């Protein structure tokens, strides 16, 4: 009897300590009231929505700062932060400073679900911005929409973000993979007429959307082999052997940078040297060159990364970092050197700053004292293309991002544009056409005008 009482006491003590542990970690926070007010030019700044105070706008994101997706992609959020710092130092958004809180989800969807709830339910962010990854963001997209939190400019080209009726709060930003597949596919169909073509793609939404686009443009009779890989298995020798055996002259790859590098190295080993056509996702020349050199080193060989990437055909929806005459590259180089010179200035950094620019543009359009709905309405009303090479598709019935890209080749470690910008849509029949509009120039102030 005495013993069982002691156990009861023990168990209760354990339960109490556990409860206190949870309580001790809690922090108080209450949601701000959302009083909408007029947005005339001299209206006082109010706390018009959760996450907005008279002096600040707090936004949040989930990013892979550690884990398999981190190399390269972990530069994106610091790049956005650098651009926000620049805006904050130059007057902010109607005087409000942007506070960008991004949390590490290590590219694990369960962690994403947790950190995004922390940002929304505890930190009361105004919006989720540029959440990175298809499987990760899918874990939170319905939660964000049910909480009516703007979910803007997802860092993934999945077609799935374009569902205005089910996900009215969610907006894509970068070129979707189906459109990208069509643009690359048309190039292959035109420039390698009658040649044997093979696909190499990641076995998920990213790769399959890309293949869908490729199939719309490349005649099925030309495609001699389709090889997929999973991103957890780095042994792709069997796939590369099959590609070689198929006699393909052109290999189109929808792969992440690490697997583009592996494809190249495994092909070299077999003396297989096809023309490589690689999705924008897996072709940043600086990232790729670094990966090629480090993988070769692990295998005990020395290679010149830039030499190996020479001649890779890819596409770009942002200006190339190497194009120093471009006004956007000049602006972002200036911001980079001023606010985050430690990070390499590569395609990922340019991406982070460009998406931050688009966000600032959308916030300025949303008005002086925006509610959450004001932001989504502002985006649906259409946005100027800013640093993108083609216009955005935003409307009330289309939540995809940019609609086009140019074809480029990698030459001496730099992406060089070949020909005009091409635009298209995600449908099977929508044509790939040459973009006839003019590209925007970066504003002298470096900050978009409302």
């Amino acid at each position, binding site marked *: 009897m005495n013993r069982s009482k002691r156990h009861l006491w023990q168990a209760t003590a354990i339960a109490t300590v*556990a409860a206190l542990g949870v309580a001790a970690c809690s922090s108080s*926070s209450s949601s701000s009231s959302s009083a909408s007010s007029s947005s005339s030019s001299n209206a006082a700044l109010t706390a018009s929505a959760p996450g907005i105070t008279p002096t600040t706008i707090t936004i949040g994101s989930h990013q892979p700062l550690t884990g398999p997706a981190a190399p390269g992609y972990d530069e994106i959020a610091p790049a956005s932060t650098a651009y926000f710092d620049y805006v904050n130092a130059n007057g902010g958004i109607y005087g409000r400073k942007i506070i960008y809180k991004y949390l590490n989800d290590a590219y694990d*969807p369960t962690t994403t679900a947790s950190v995004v709830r922390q940002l929304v339910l505890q930190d009361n962010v105004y919006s989720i911005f540029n959440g990175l990854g298809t499987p990760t963001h899918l874990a939170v997209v319905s939660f964000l929409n049910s909480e009516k939190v703007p979910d803007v400019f997802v860092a993934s080209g999945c077609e799935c973000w374009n569902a205005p009726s089910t996900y009215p709060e969610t907006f894509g930003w970068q070129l979707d993979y189906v459109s990208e597949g069509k643009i690359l596919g048309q190039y292959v169909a035109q420039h390698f007429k009658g040649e044997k073509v093979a696909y190499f793609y990641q076995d998920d*939404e990213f790769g399959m959307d890309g293949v869908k686009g490729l199939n719309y443009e490349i005649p099925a009779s030309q495609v001699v082999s389709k090889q997929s890989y999973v991103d957890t298995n780095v042994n792709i020798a069997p796939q590369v052997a099959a590609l070689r055996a198929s006699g393909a002259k052109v290999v189109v790859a929808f792969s992440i940078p690490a697997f583009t590098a592996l494809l190249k190295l495994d092909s070299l080993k077999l003396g297989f040297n096809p023309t490589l056509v690689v999705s924008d996702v897996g072709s940043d020349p600086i990232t790729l060159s670094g990966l090629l050199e480090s993988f070769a080193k692990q295998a005990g060989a020395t290679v010149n990364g830039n030499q190996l990437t020479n001649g890779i055909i890819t596409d770009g929806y942002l200006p190339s970092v190497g194009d120093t005459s471009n006004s956007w590259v000049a602006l972002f180089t200036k911001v980079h050197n001023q606010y985050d010179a430690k990070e390499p200035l590569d395609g990922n950094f340019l991406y982070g700053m460009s998406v931050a620019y688009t966000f600032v543009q959308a916030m300025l359009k949303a008005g002086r004292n925006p509610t959450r709905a004001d932001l989504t309405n502002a985006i649906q009303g259409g946005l100027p293309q800013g640093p993108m090479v083609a216009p955005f598709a935003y409307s009330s019935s289309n939540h995809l991002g940019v609609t086009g890209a140019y074809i480029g080749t990698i030459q001496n470690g730099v992406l060089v544009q070949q020909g005009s910008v091409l635009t298209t849509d995600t449908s099977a029949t929508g044509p790939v056409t040459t973009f006839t509009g003019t590209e925007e120039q970066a504003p002298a102030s470096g900050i978009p005008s409302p």
Partner: protein
Amino acid sequence: MRTLPRRLAVAIIVAAIVVFLSIKLNAFRDYQIAEIAVDVTAVAGLTVLTGLSGQISLGNGAFMAIGAYVTALLLLHLSWPFYAVLVVAAAATAVAGAAVGVAAARLRGPYLAGATLMLGVALPAIAYAWPATFGGDQGLNVVFTTPAFLGANFPLTRWQAWVSVAVALVTLILLANLQHSRIGRNWRAVRDDEVAAALDGINVAAARIRAFVVSATSAGLAGALLAIITGLVAPGAFTITLSIALLTAAVIGGLGSLAGALWGSLVIVLVPTYVTDVATSHGLSSSVGSNIPVAAYGVLLILVMLVFPQGIQGGLQRLFSLFAGPDQKPRTWRTAPTPHITPSADQAPASQHEKEGTS
């Protein structure tokens, strides 16, 4: 006091504390309570499997996936009430656990680890094979709402926390009864010496399979809870990382101890968030700050293993015994055969499996 009423009393006290906390704390903390309850449910099943029956599983994440997909499909297509879904999810994973258990009963040590690892890696990939049914990479959306009687303004995360904690507590009570029943004693006998257990008339294979069924069922329930709290069931959530995290929690908490399952779950849920907050509030650069939680986790794991080889629960028992006096030795499953346990005939049968075992 009989053991079952005592456990019920503890469960009611814990439930009352959770209800109190869930009202006091913000919505995100409610979500974390639900997350902890999910992990406790899964880890408790695993700690019974590994700590008591001596089998290892690196595939319990796959059983969670089965529970989660069953839940999603039933809610999506048949709109069943959640309690009915829970029963079916548990039954489905029990069947899967029995199938795996039959294979597992023939394997030992690293071979068993390898086989269950394969399960953990391969099974979630089935979702890609039938995208029409399982939604492929995008997964299935689960709609779970608060019941009408709580009113329209009742926070969903609080309701999720209540449901999850209720399921976790029921699971813990059932497991505790099982642990102290004849079945539990058979598991320990099999774990310590299979030959001796067989000579004593214990069906070794049956005991091992039974442990797998129990462990899989707990994981299935946890999967069902995970489905309703995250609102999405997709293969990306059930990678091998999840299975390993469960095993880590069981080891940190103390293998074989149900209270340890709670400690381990608290650690894997709260430590990363807490350390991230500390790291970001000290203005560390992101390349350093983002790696600190991973490093802290590793350091904690090493420290627990060095200081408390029996896990947190083992360490706490040692502390308790220090205060209780020198005659109270720490009670661990490995060394002491729990003499104070009441005969199993005095206990209410906890589950179907127990009935089978005691008959």
